[in-house]
């Protein structure tokens, strides 16, 4: 009887080992999946904060130099965001903050200089003008100089309107340039029926042409500008992403809309 049962303990032990091994293997698969889930959750949280960092970064750049930030930026070795910023709505971007007041414009310097007009940056961020377009109606007359705040922004000789001037004029936040803003011609502008100015900003937006001479009854006020910023946050070595979109009012400095969007950027 004892001889017949010899080896049964070994068989039982092997069977037990097989069962335990199967159970442990199953548990291992479960735990690996569990850890992957934790890793995914962590990356999701990091991605949304990275995306939010991108929005803040784009706003900072815009407020410093009216620059629209696009493309990928690394936060550190493990985190990054990708931005897409566009001007939209109203006068659009930085141009929406510009107010030109020509209610007191006048001629001086043998009536060759158009002065007395002002330009205001009505936003909480600095703006930079990189192009001025001047038009006039009565020719022959040559544009020779453009001055803002007593600083000569352009000199040259353009006889045929429109005169497109490459300039670099920065106006700080909530600031009006009131004195010594001049458009200077080589001959009298007294009989000109309409001299206009339009400004292009470094963000690519442009103001509508505003008549600065003869004097106008009211200021040229652009519509409030806005920026739409999309930001996608990612972590290094992963395809996981989360994206957000913000709408920023360039005049009030307020983010009025902020939502998660389920798309890649750009």
């Amino acid at each position, binding site marked *: 009887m004892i001889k017949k049962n010899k080896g049964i*303990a*070994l068989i039982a*032990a*092997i069977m*037990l*080992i097989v069962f*335990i*091994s199967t159970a*442990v293997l199953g*548990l*291992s698969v479960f*735990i690996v999946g*569990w*850890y992957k889930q*934790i890793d995914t*959750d*962590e990356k999701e*949280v*990091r991605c949304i*904060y*990275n995306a*939010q*960092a*991108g929005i*803040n*970064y784009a*706003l*900072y750049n815009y*407020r*410093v130099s009216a620059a629209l930030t696009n493309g990928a930026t690394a*936060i*550190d070795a*493990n*985190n990054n965001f990708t931005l897409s910023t566009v001007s939209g709505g109203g006068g659009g971007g930085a141009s929406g903050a510009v107010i030109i007041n020509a209610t007191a414009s006048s001629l001086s310097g043998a009536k060759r200089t158009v002065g007395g007009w002002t330009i205001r940056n009505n936003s*909480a*961020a*600095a703006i930079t003008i990189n192009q001025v377009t001047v038009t006039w109606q009565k020719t022959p007359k040559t544009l020779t100089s453009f001055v803002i705040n007593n600083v000569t922004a352009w000199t040259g000789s353009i006889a045929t309107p429109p005169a497109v001037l490459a300039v670099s004029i920065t106006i*700080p*936040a909530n600031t009006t340039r009131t004195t010594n803003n001049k458009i200077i011609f080589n001959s009298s502008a007294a009989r000109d029926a309409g001299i206009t100015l339009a400004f292009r900003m470094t963000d690519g937006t442009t103001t509508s042409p505003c008549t600065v001479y003869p004097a106008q009854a009211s200021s040229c006020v652009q519509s409030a500008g806005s920026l739409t910023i999309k930001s996608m946050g990612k972590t290094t070595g992963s395809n996981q992403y989360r994206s957000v979109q913000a709408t*920023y009012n360039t005049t*009030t*400095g*307020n*983010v*009025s809309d*902020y939502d998660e969007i389920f798309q890649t950027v750009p």
Partner: protein
Amino acid sequence: MTIVVVGIVALPISITVAKHVQSVFVSQDYITALNLARLEMERILNTAYASVASATTNNYLGYAYNVATTVTETVSGLQAYKIITVSVTKVGSVTVLVTLKNYMVKNVTWGL
């Protein structure tokens, strides 16, 4: 023979089971750390810009975790932004379990 076979197989299985038990606690650490980091980040994002500063809180909210917030500022004229880093470690350990980063821009209001 039976004892030898069971002994050989039981050793790695025992180690594996021990690791499994250990991993349950480690995963709990990660989950807790992640949620504490989120909590701290949201608290900072609801703080006025000027008041956001570096700080370390031991035993954060009574949990056995330390939360360190590091803030660095980049300034250009009147404009600025802060880089916020929130790191969570277990009390008595230097191993960082979770690190979250975010930026906060100055002079911008949020909401309608």
